[in-house]
């Protein structure tokens, strides 16, 4: 029995040629810098292109979630083209370090620009933008004086008035992980169960939906990353939800980072370090964080005016890497407490 032979070679050649045509021109002479980034295109591409122009090299990047990028790095092994790995969560940086995918670097510029709790003590990764997760309240129905701590949201007075995003969201997992580190597993679980008992409606798929529900009157208080509110307030000046900095009398508001490190098998190591230093430099920091209404990791740099308007706050300074490490424990606690 015979079958028509398939010209595999020709198909492969076609695919490669089509690839060259469609993937755009290669522009520069120097070694390109390759970035795997979970911080998405619309927030980083402009800066990447600027760096490319400034250095006269090509910056190539692919986006995906942190976990798949880690898997891609693992599968590619020593031959991975990646030089820099950027995430939107400390947990992914911790995990990439554990998997041996990042290499430690020493850089005086990075060490002086980025506070110690926002970077790996050994230099595997550095925070580049700070995302604060705190309490949001509906301005018409709640007075700031009624608010104090995350834990207070578990009190019966908020029954039927609390909105939360899904417990599967990494930012909630990292918040719970911080509490496990600060006050132990039992107390954290009690607090989370209290939150669940107070829910006005099923948890939301994302912070933006939740904030809109608060604005529409479905609930009065919630927990959000400040930048989601920043975007909504930017679109609509009188958006009826405001930020309250939680736990200011205690250990401080929960922060996570978007950060990066140099990959273990970076082909262009020197350029990768230079790139991270450039991202941490004052002029770029404002825009890197500002593009998303976040706080610059570099403490000497002012955030956007809209962000400054929320007032300054005391961040919880437990190392964000420790929070990443505790994340699996937090996920299990969230499952036990029934936070969907």
């Amino acid at each position, binding site marked *: 029995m015979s079958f028509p032979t398939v010209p595999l070679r020709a198909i492969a050649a076609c695919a490669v040629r089509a690839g060259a045509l469609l993937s*755009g021109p290669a522009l520069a002479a120097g070694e390109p810098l390759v970035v795997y980034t979970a911080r998405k295109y619309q927030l980083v591409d402009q800066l990447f292109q600027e760096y490319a122009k400034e250095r006269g090299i090509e910056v190539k990047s692919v986006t995906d979630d942190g976990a798949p990028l880690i898997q891609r790095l693992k599968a590619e092994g020593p031959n991975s083209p990646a030089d820099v790995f950027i995430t939107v969560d400390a947990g992914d940086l911790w995990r990439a370090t554990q998997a041996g995918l990042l290499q430690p670097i020493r850089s005086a510029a990075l060490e002086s620009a980025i506070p110690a709790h926002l970077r790996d003590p050994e230099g595997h990764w550095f925070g580049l933008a700070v995302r604060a997760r705190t309490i949001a309240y509906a301005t018409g129905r709640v007075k700031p004086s009624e608010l104090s701590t995350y834990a207070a949201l578990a009190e019966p007075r908020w029954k039927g008035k609390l909105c939360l995003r899904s417990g599967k969201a990494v930012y909630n997992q990292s918040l719970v992980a911080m509490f496990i580190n600060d006050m132990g597993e039992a107390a954290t679980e009690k607090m989370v169960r209290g939150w669940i008992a107070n829910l006005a409606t099923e948890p939301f798929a994302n912070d933006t939906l939740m904030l809109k529900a608060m604005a529409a009157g479905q609930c009065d208080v919630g927990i959000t990353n400040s930048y989601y509110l920043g975007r909504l307030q930017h679109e609509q000046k009188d958006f009826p939800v405001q930020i309250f900095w939680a736990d200011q009398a205690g250990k401080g508001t929960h922060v996570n980072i978007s950060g990066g490190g140099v990959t273990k098998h970076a082909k262009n190591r020197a350029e990768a370090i230079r790139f991270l230093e450039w991202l941490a430099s004052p002029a770029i920091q404002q825009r890197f964080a500002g593009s998303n209404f976040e706080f610059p990791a570099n403490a000497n740099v002012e955030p956007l005016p809209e962000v400054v308007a929320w007032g300054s706050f005391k961040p919880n300074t437990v190392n964000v890497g420790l929070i990443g490490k505790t994340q699996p424990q937090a996920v299990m606690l969230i499952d036990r407490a029934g936070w969907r």
Partner: protein
Amino acid sequence: MDAASARAGPASVAILVALPMAAVVAAIVQGALGAEPALWDHLREYVLARVAANTLVLAVGVVAVAGCLGTALAWLTAACEFPGRAFFSWALLLPMAMPAYVLAFVAVATLDYAGIVPTALRAWLGNDLWLPPIRSAGGVVAVIGIALYPYVYLMARGAFLTHGARVLESAQSLGLGPWQGLFRVAIPLARPWLAGGMALVAMEALADFGAVSVFNYDTFTTAIYESWYGLFSVETALLLALVLLSFVALALAAERLARGRRRYTAADAGARAPLRLALPGFRGWLATAFAGGVFAVAFVLPAVALARWALAVAPFDLDGRYVAYVMRTLALAGMAALACLALAVALGYATRKPSAGRLAHAAARFATLGYAVPGTVLAVGVVTALGAFDSAWRAHLGGDGLWLSGTVLALLFGYVARFLAVAYGPIQGGFSRIRPSLEEAARSLGLATRELISRLHLPLLGAGIGTALLLVFVDVMKEMPITLMTRPFGWDTLAVRVFEMTAEGEWERAALPSLAIVAAGLLPVALLTWRMERAARAA
């Protein structure tokens, strides 16, 4: 030819086609072996029972919704005559271009408490108005069912068009009315095609992550994601995926068992023009209202919502890059469609007779299981398998760099592993209509195998080929996880852009690339429906 050698050919072809899936499954199994028992215990105690129940509700509910809508609409447009029938017969396929995750976010954004519809209703009827929550099991089943009905519609319509009218005639001659004709003759006769369409729907629902996560509805797939993203254990995630895969294999085997050894062969195509049952007056307009309602909910209203959002962001998001996104999306979808079609035809040809043997049939079923695997799990299998291939290549043949990882071939490999089932269904359906006697007759006239394929099989497969190409093409355009994880640098597509926006919670900005996917998907859908109509008229 003795029986054993008659089976050797088909079996080797089927096994060859199953190789990509085998490589992927091997990588998944190898990873799953490393699953941590402690995590497994946790999942068993707190997660699995709930997500298993949710998954069952989702699969059964979505198949019911999509099956009823798809079959009813296919019957109406293929075998009945009502006002607007010609328009609806192709328009009802258009929702296929609307990804389920897009329909989901439009539904939640407009129908949830803060959405435009409930807000307007509260303003009108008062704040205490209770509305059924869209973010619920019922909501997710309805939305995904509506998003997926075109798969059933497409397959069912093909079946009804070729023997629908004749069936009615013969039913009439036996004294059965049109309704009895439908339920007692037409539907049972169309069973393989209906089952094929519904199997696709079920697999798509099981593998879905994008749409269910918009509803925060926990299924097996979200548990897989959580194990990987949250518990940091890709191994446990892969193990969960294998469990899911085993259930799917069992369910498919059960369906086959229930169908038994009956053979379904349609009457010769091209005998007579389709005869349609006229629905007079009120009944005709009822059909129009039904078709129009489904079309509005599944396509027009969401497209309008998308257009509104897209217009708001177009001034600063829409630029020349979109031409490249569209080109790449179409190029990848086209290449993947052709690759899947070629393999599906090989597979369908090899397994067209029961005498092909168990091995060939088993290999064919295995090769097409990828559709039930969540895309991201399949993507892990693909990058792992290709990474292993690349290291082996380096170790034995030298050189450096990556041969397959991060190339367009890697992407196509992933698409084939995932979407072969989608092409195989219609092709298999097509082969099953070619009566064995026809082939024997052709052979007795001295036709060689090659001529047999080019002069007998390919022409008779026509409609199946179009359906297969369209389904894969549209599915690849909407595909996210494999594209994200295996694409080369600079190969960002429209779906990649949708992902980047939705991952940041910027759904309104995702409307622009989503709308572009819908628009680009319209072209092949229109082509296919035009073909189907022409074929039906010619028949």
